[in-house]
């Protein structure tokens, strides 16, 4: 692929493979459905009216473009590289997830589907899905792990307000992995009217590609905005990784700019050397789950391990297949940040920039804090501030040993 054509941007191949990774590892019942999604997406891409409608919703409904913001006080604080935030937390619904949901809901509508299902971890994708379903008048069912329902209560309430049916999944670790299993089972049982709106750049082909394409607006805007702000490309891009959608959206437009360093930050939970983390590249190996081959946390016998992260949106034992491939190619560096490091960055950002970030990008910020001091003042870092922290206040209060509503 890349070797032959000198680009990192032309994957996947016709079968949905990024080198060893990706593919379509699904039960036969679902094969015709994902082939139908692929055809419908190809059709939509060839139809200018589809792009036009999406563009209009991005601008007038989601609020794009999101600003590129110079984080002056954090730059001063770290005393090195110049730090910019891509402010995707300012999008309608509070994260980058809406970028993908708008694209996919317009696709589902074209396909004549009337019922939408989704999985969610942090609840951000669930909220974004419930939002577009409300807007387009479609039935919405969101599968969410019982543990995540507990720690992301504000988002559960929002989904209910938006008219979604939030179904608790009690099995296993009761987090994102089980929610995705349950969504796939629902889809197998409701093939005629249902569209599965996957929330991250993972799952069977064509989902990793579709989600990447819809999220690439992030990186495309950064290119233009950095050109306007500094007259050149950034030097380093940093994004957190759950399934990898915000990261691939930021990275993809820059993959062939070899001078731009790309860093994905996985969740190290209680530490990469413990069994309680969610860093599938740093701590896992290749395997097959949820329709694709990728890096997974697993036992020697191939049973999937439960992930752990303080951040529900990163608490997943896999990663999108394009990231697995970019790791193999050495094009993107994958590092990790622990729960504690993310919590510290969460507080620092709140106090110094007046922005309460989600716990997910707090992982990315923690890593920015590690490299920025070592870099020169003309080194430009862009971090994807892909979500806001309102949903996390209960979790953070708990971790800090206080309570929401307690006097401080």
């Amino acid at each position, binding site marked *: 692929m890349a070797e032959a054509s000198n680009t990192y941007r032309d994957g996947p191949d016709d079968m949905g493979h990024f080198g060893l990774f990706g593919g*379509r590892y699904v039960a036969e019942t679902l*094969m015709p459905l994902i082939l139908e999604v692929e055809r419908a997406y190809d059709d939509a891409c060839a139809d200018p009216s589809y792009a036009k409608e999406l563009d209009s919703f991005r601008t007038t409904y989601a609020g794009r473009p999101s600003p590129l913001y110079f984080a002056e006080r954090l730059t001063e604080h770290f005393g090195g590289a110049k730090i910019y935030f891509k402010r995707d937390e300012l999008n309608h619904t509070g994260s980058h997830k809406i970028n993908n949901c708008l694209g996919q809901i317009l696709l589902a509508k074209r396909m004549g589907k009337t019922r939408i299902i989704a999985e969610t971890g942090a609840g951000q994708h669930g909220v974004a899905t419930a939002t577009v379903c409300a807007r387009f008048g479609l039935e919405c069912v969101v599968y969410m792990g019982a543990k995540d329902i507990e720690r992301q209560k504000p988002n559960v309430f929002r989904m209910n307000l938006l008219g979604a049916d939030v179904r608790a999944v009690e099995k296993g670790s009761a987090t994102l992995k089980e929610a995705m299993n349950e969504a796939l*089972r629902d889809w197998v049982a409701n093939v005629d009217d249902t569209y599965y709106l996957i929330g991250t750049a993972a799952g069977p082909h064509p989902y990793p590609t579709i989600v990447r394409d819809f999220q690439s607006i992030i990186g495309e805007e950064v290119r233009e905005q950095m050109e306007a702000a500094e007259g050149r490309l950034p030097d380093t891009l940093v994004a957190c990784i759950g399934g990898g959608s915000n990261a691939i959206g930021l990275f993809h437009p820059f993959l062939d700019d070899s001078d731009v360093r790309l860093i994905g930050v996985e969740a190290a939970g209680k530490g990469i050397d413990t069994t309680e983390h969610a860093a599938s590249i740093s701590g896992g190996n290749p395997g097959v*789950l949820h329709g694709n081959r990728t890096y997974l946390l697993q036992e020697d*016998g191939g049973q*999937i391990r439960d992930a752990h992260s303080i951040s529900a949106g990163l608490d997943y034992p896999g990663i999108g297949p394009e990231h697995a491939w970019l790791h193999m190619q050495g094009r993107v560096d994958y590092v990790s940040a622990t729960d504690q490091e993310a919590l510290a960055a969460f507080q620092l950002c709140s106090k110094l920039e007046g922005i309460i970030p989600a716990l997910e990008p707090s992982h990315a910020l923690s890593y920015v804090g590690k490299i920025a001091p070592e870099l020169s003042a003309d080194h430009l870092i862009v971090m994807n501030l892909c979500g806001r922290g309102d949903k996390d206040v209960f979790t953070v209060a708990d971790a800090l040993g206080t309570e929401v509503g307690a006097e401080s």
Partner: protein
Amino acid sequence: MSASVTESRLTRRFEKLKEKNRAALVTFITANDPDPKLFRQLLEGLPTAGADIIELGMPFSDPMADGPSVQLSSQRALLAGVSIDDVLGAVADMREWEMDTPVILMGYYNPIYRYGPAEFSEAAANAGVDGVIIVDLPPEEAEELNHHLRANNLHMIFLAAPTTDETRLPRVLDHASGFVYYVAVKGVTGTKSADISEVSARVAAMRKQTDLPLGVGFGIRTAAQAAEMAQFADAVVIGSAIVDIITDGIDGDRRPQPGLAARVLDFVKDLANGVQTARLGGAENASTGAGA
């Protein structure tokens, strides 16, 4: 690419049953569910109870195509402890005394991928396994395992689903080996009830496109339903209904109640009776058999 496995325990069994003008009863249980001891008792009793083909589930942590019954049984087996080598060991032991009943393994790809497709295929053949069904390996992704299976004279059995349309079916049939497994419901295992007339129409349509035996599974729970399917299908697969008896027959620590193995095997006898008598008396219209 056509299947290269032409002669096996599985093809012989289907030929024999065709001579007798009856369908095969395929029983599914999960290896080591709820513990190795009961599992081995069941394995030992299944051939005499009337199972013509034994299907063994290889448990996986994330059985995405399975409903609650098989999910629970996989979880129990994983708690009891079960590796691929344990499953193959049980089959190898069975082959000491039972040479004619085919054994097929059903599972998900990741444990096999970790084991190594070549190593797995060789070890399975050595143990006396006859074929595999890998739920999440559609024809598009199957070759990486299938060429090792073929090299070891093992069948890779593919599923055809209600959603498998006319353009796609030839692709599935082209890869199929041993028999074609028609998924009788749009859904995961053990949740919906199969619609006989729909299924028989699909099976009749597939007959025109393949000489392979046609099995039907998912959503068949009773001896009466099995008998109805057995009038036109070459094999009838029962899984969740068997597994549910185990679920109902154990305590909170997964300990089987006395007599549980006998209860499971009695149910299999019922099913076998239904399947074996399905085409007797007034049902001649339905029974043309495979490739007829």
